[in-house]
């Protein structure tokens, strides 16, 4: 910052630029700063906060939101939205046990059965995401409506598949994805980290990533400059479907059961909130995967902090609502 006094009338370019830059800086790092402050607050006031257990609890709880949020970030980067993620989680979560419990085709070897279940259920979720992309590009339907179709029908499909019944199971060969550990780190946290890293690299460094941002920034311009807009959109919705499928598997593995009525319920809103708080523009063209991770961690830690200090979950909803609005408002200031 320059040393100018606030009351100065002539806003010469360097001072204005400095202010604009500092506002952009505030906008960019406000969520991260808030996260750091929240952590410091907890270190000071919450008992037993600095422990591996606390870290693991928070990370395992946030993992599914981040996994879905990765796909959602890519979708929102193209100026779209995906409301179907929760329902796709339910479909993947309903399909996997049907396969590995051998309800349709009995499979003798347990590892083969589990591998088939995981691959097929995630692939089905991905294919349904691809279907979203097809609706959006082929018929020029708005993303919010196109994905509303599967939001409504998808959970119904999962419920019809299981007849609404709970599918309990106990199968270590499958449940590692929700309960296992790798070098002491919960497996879904490893999955989450790998997906965040892969998506962040894709968005920043790869041609596909540039194309995503180009489509979100200005679709017409992207089309005119030769970006395969339809293909890019198919892929982002397909990827969002794949991410939802994986998250669905994690959730049922943690619960040791699959309940089509509950798996992924309300996930679309959690994921969108994480993306928005993380600093991705909902109007497309600017996106940050790491921001989504920070946004999800921030929302999770707010909830944890309130709970750990004896404040009921209902109040934390109110606080969460205020924080989402505040975070998005702050980011808007940077562009003012």
């Amino acid at each position: 910052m320059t040393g100018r006094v606030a009351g100065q009338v002539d806003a010469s370019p360097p001072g204005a630029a400095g202010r604009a830059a500092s506002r952009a800086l505030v906008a960019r790092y406000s969520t991260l700063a808030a996260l750091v402050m929240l952590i410091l607050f907890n270190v000071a006031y919450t008992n037993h906060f600095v422990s591996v257990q606390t870290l693991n609890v928070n990370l395992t709880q946030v993992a599914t939101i981040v996994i879905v949020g990765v796909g959602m970030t890519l979708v929102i980067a193209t100026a779209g939205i995906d409301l179907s993620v929760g329902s796709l989680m339910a479909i993947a979560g309903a399909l996997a046990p049907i396969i590995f419990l051998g309800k349709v085709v009995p499979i003798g070897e347990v590892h083969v059965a589990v591998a088939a279940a995981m691959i097929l259920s995630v692939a089905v979720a991905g294919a349904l995401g691809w279907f979203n992309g097809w609706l959006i590009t082929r018929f020029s339907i708005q993303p919010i409506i196109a994905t509303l179709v599967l939001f409504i029908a998808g959970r119904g499909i999962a419920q019809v598949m299981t007849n609404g019944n709970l599918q309990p199971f106990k199968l270590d060969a499958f449940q590692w994805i929700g309960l296992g550990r790798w070098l002491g780190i919960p497996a879904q946290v490893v999955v989450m980290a790998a997906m965040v890293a892969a998506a962040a690299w894709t968005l920043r460094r790869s041609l596909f990533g540039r194309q995503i941002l180009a489509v979100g920034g200005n679709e017409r311009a992207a089309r005119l400059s030769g970006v395969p807009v339809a293909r890019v959109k198919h892929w982002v919705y397909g990827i969002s479907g794949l991410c939802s499928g994986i998250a669905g598997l994690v959730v049922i593995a943690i619960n040791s059961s699959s309940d089509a009525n509950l798996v992924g319920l309300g996930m679309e809103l959690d994921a969108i909130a994480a993306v928005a708080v993380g600093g991705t523009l909902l109007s497309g063209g600017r996106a940050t995967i790491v921001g989504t991770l920070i946004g999800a961690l921030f929302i999770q830690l707010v909830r944890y902090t309130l709970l750990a200090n004896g404040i009921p979950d209902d109040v934390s909803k109110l606080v969460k609502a205020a924080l989402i609005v505040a975070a998005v408002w702050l980011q808007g200031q940077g562009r003012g």
Partner: protein
Amino acid sequence: MRQASLIAVLARQGVLIALVLLILFGWLRYDNFLGPFNISTVLRYNSMFALVALGMCFVIMTGGIDLSVGGTAALGSVVAALFSPYGTLAGTVGGVAAGLCVGAANGFVIVRLRILPFITTLAAMLAASGAALLLAGDQSVSVSYESGFTDLGQGDVLGIPIPAVIAAAAYVVGSIVLNLTSTGRTVLAIGGNEDASRLMGLPVDRVKFLVYVASGGLSGLAGVVLASQFGAGQPVEGVGWELFAIASVVVGGTVLTGGIGSVGATLAGVLLLGLIFNVLNFENGLGWISLSAYWQSVIRGIFLLFVVILQSRLTLRDEAT
């Protein structure tokens, strides 16, 4: 040319035609489908969704969206239940006032802080359902049965369920406001082109604020009906109402980018989606097939899919000509 206008009429009246066909189908196929009991049950239950969808219709016509309607209805039902010992009027006013507050907060944040309606109302949904749970102490709140509050949801006037009368009145008012007042024309103008409306000197901010307030108030009213109909304020009810309402509005032919819309077609959309469940029940009653209740969301989804594809084909055709 004549054929093109026929298709346009079909598109505009499609939901009405589908509704009439579905009713005819039910009337011919099932005994008692048009019996007084069934009609009154369907109207009583769906009037809550009709109220919510009416507010949503206005919001969507301005090009916005309101995701908070379900949470607001839950909050309205809890507040109404808490006020119900003081009489029907107190319960109703309390529930509607709670909804108006949520709507005013939405409108303020969207108009003054310029945050996207999607995010604002998403946050409002969290806040409203949190407030509902907090007020209710995490359980449903029984309404007072002495004060006559339950008549509002369970009683009849001239054989018509009171909730249906309330909803019908709301739609008449909504239709008048949309078609005969300058506020209504401004709603459509904003949805058509907000910048142009602003340049023309229309009170864009005020009307946008008002549609969110109206949506909140109608959701609160739906909550009042919910509480009196089921005898309890239900803080966890209302999940997914927003998307059901959006689906009804879209099936009714209101375009999501705003600027075009019809109040009557929205009501037809609500009844169409509501009757699917009813027809499913009757079909199961015949015993030929047995489809679980879960099929209703699948069928609703397919309906929505069909309508949006049809609409997009027609708009593409319009743009081509």
